[in-house]
């Protein structure tokens, strides 16, 4: 880098408005040539200058700037202060000449001033996002939303992406004194300035909005100073609701005085004793009412076709609680009808348990899966999901009132005890006493566990499962006797 002594003064010509590209190219060139800030004049005139008249500048190497400096530049460039480029170049110069941590010294006068400018831009953007008002028009046949806004700084291009993110599904135009932004649903384009008159008159919802604005105001808390600090008067002319402000302020004191002075009125005769009593009595009264609620409630994790309800006669002596419905169950709307369910049926039969006389249900009522190609791969419910569904399971078991509750696998154990207990340790009789109604219980594996075992282990595990079911049958018979 050159030593920068006694350089000829340079004039840099930039586009009016926020010329980030022009400034960046110029700053790269100047820094590469070692031109100090005091030797540069930044011109926003449209007259040609020495620099501007040069042939198209070849790209200079990007400057290696501290991140905080690089981040500040686009935040200051839209500022209307003509000194902005000079100040930014001074910042760059100092950061490149031994003061890499300059931005951390927020008390430095230059940093302080630039921070204030960035803050002003931030505020201007924020106010544009907040106070711009669209009007709907269907003049050219299609629906379009049009707005007129007068920002303090050159921020149209910085402000527009917000509206794209927010109003992607609408077609809209934002007009300002410096240019326009147009969104057609696919692409954002910029065009020539507009005027307030370009915005169509009358929008069916403006009066409704004004009504809302008037109504949401509380006359007992009037504080116009706080209002003007956040919503300065200069914005008012483009905000339809502000037309109400003078009248609201004029009437506030009187409205409040009236509320305070008015004698409390005699309460209306409304004493809807029966409705009030009925209000407190909303819990489901039986299994059908509970199932109706479960059926119309959304799955916690979206995707399931339907809720899979418990099945079996109320009053069954044994209730089996599984994990959650699988692919088949989800489609058929019945529990334990897939491969694991078929295995369970077979084992029950071998153990002498009448499936039709037992109650079968799941801890979680909706199928959860990840899609792999066309296959829906079962995904284990999380602890949070299990506790979400526990309310229903508790009520369900209270209505069915079995003598024995069988937990098939770890998820059922979690749902019934509220704790994660390893099956291997707790397998066998167990007391589920988390409920208001306490249940004699039994813990065993989930039949799907048997399906996942390697072939050589399958037979032994299946025999153990059938043995468990036999004990369950005996226990159930004993408890019902």
């Amino acid at each position, binding site marked *: 880098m050159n030593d920068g002594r006694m350089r000829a003064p340079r004039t840099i010509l930039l586009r009016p408005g926020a010329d980030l590209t022009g400034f960046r190219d110029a700053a790269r060139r100047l820094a590469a040539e070692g031109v100090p800030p005091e030797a540069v004049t930044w011109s926003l005139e449209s007259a040609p200058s020495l620099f501007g008249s040069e042939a198209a500048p070849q790209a200079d190497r990007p400057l290696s700037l501290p991140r905080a400096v690089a981040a500040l530049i686009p935040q200051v460039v839209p500022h209307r202060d003509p000194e902005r480029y000079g100040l930014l170049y001074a910042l760059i110069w100092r950061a490149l000449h031994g003061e890499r941590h300059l931005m951390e010294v927020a008390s430095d006068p230059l940093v302080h001033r630039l921070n204030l400018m960035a803050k002003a831009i931030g505020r201007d953007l924020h106010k544009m996002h907040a106070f711009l008002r669209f009007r709907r028009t269907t003049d050219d046949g299609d629906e379009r939303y049009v707005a007129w806004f007068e920002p303090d700084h050159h921020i149209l291009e910085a402000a527009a992406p917000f509206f794209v993110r927010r109003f992607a599904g609408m077609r809209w135009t934002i007009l300002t004194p410096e240019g326009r932004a147009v969104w057609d649903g696919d692409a954002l384009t910029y065009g020539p300035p507009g005027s307030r008159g370009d915005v169509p008159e009358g929008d069916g919802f403006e009066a409704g909005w004004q009504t809302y604005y008037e109504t949401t105001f509380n006359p007992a808390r009037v504080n116009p100073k706080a209002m003007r600090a956040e919503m300065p008067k200069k914005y008012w002319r483009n905000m339809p609701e502000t037309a109400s402000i003078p009248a609201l302020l004029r009437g506030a004191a009187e409205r409040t005085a009236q*509320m305070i002075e008015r004698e409390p009125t005699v309460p209306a005769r409304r004493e809807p004793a029966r409705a009030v009593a009925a209000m407190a009595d909303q819990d489901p009264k039986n299994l059908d009412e509970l199932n109706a609620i479960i059926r119309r409630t959304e799955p*916690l994790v979206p995707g399931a076709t339907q809720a899979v309800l418990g099945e079996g006669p109320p009053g069954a002596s044994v209730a089996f609680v599984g994990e959650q419905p699988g692919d088949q169950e989800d489609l058929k709307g019945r529990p334990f009808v897939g491969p694991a369910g078929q295995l369970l049926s077979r084992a029950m039969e071998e153990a002498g348990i009448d499936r039709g006389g037992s109650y079968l249900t799941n801890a979680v009522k909706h199928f959860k899966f990840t899609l792999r190609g066309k296959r829906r791969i079962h995904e284990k419910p999380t602890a949070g999901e299990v506790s979400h569904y526990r309310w229903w399971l508790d009520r369900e078991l209270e209505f069915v009132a079995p003598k024995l509750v069988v937990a098939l696998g770890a998820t059922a154990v979690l749902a019934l005890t509220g704790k994660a207990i390893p099956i291997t340790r707790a397998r066998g009789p167990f007391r589920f006493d988390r409920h208001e109604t306490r249940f004699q219980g039994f813990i065993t594996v989930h039949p799907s566990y048997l399906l996942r075992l390697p072939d050589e282990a399958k037979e032994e595990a299946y025999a153990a499962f059938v043995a468990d079911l036999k004990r369950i049958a005996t226990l159930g018979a004993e408890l019902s006797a």
Partner: protein
Amino acid sequence: MDEVLAKKLRILADAAKYDASCASSGAPKRAAGKDGIGSTTGAGICHAYTPDGRCVSLLKILLTNWCLFDCAYCVNRRSSNVRRAKFTVEEVVSLTLNFYKRNYIEGLFLSSGIIRSPDHTMELMTRVAKSLRRDHGFAGYIHLKSIPEASPWLIEEAGLYADRLSINVELPTEASLGRLAPEKDGAAIQGAMAQIGERIIQAKAEKRRFAPAGHSTQVIVGADDTTDAALIAKSETLYGSVGLKRVYYSAFSPIPDGSQILPLKAPPLAREHRLYQADWLLRYYAFTAEEVASASEGGMLALDIDPKLAWALKYRERFPVDVNTADREMLLRVPGLGARAVDRIVKARKHTTLRLDDVARLTSSLKRARPFLIAADHRPVGLTDRADLRAKLVEPAQQLSLF
């Protein structure tokens, strides 16, 4: 917008305005999908300010102001003579979308009186949120007021669509609740808040969507004789126990057709303001409720100075504090230094020694900080011992209302 809808809007916005919260903050950043509308920014946006100085961010309305409860402080209690109305689910959805498309609002804050049953009402409210999200691809902000008496699964379903859930404590003590809202059950309110808090934590851990902007509550100030110290202690408990994001303090305001058992008077706005400041000290300045209370008079915060200044004046022996060496915790206790200013001080002093002029560029209220600070070129000799220091720092009486 037709006449009937406008009339309903007038009644049901009026009935909703006593809820102080209008925040649209805290939601994860979202953008509208293709053909959808709505986005969230994280910090939230105030789209207008009413002449009471309050922000209009959300369309804040009740689904209905018919109510079976009879809470004395509430304009919608069943014995009140106000005009009644009820929106349909479709009407709320349409209003929200139409206001949103014109950039009037950030989203919807829906609350309701209780009709038929808490469950029935909660289901209707959830249907609004669900329809906005599912049928209209609405990605804007939704705040649902949960009904603590509603069944747990309904509150949980609401959390799937809402960004924020809230349940109002309204009255800070059981005794007041018993007197002014005899049909409300304090334990049920606490239980429902705890449930929401637990689900939010679980969902976050499991990366599921459930009220991602957290939950909040509101306490009415001045409808009973609870002290500021007790209110702040209550808030501290709520922040700790059920993981609340915000406690809103709502100065009890005269309402049209007020109840006979509550005195109608001007709302204690200055008191409300001081409570918010004290609340900030809990959340951002590492104060405990006990410390805030220790600088109060008989449990009430001073109205003429802010609670941080009150604390500093009471514990003058802890000052002055050296900006160039003091740790962050102590700098946060200096009146006039905000959390932002403190962060900047801590950063800047790594590279330079701060003088008073430097500090002036880092905070906007040097005047208040000055007596409590030591800088390279400044030492407030004996100033913290001056008897008239309090008088010097009192804010000029502000006209907070027209009374």
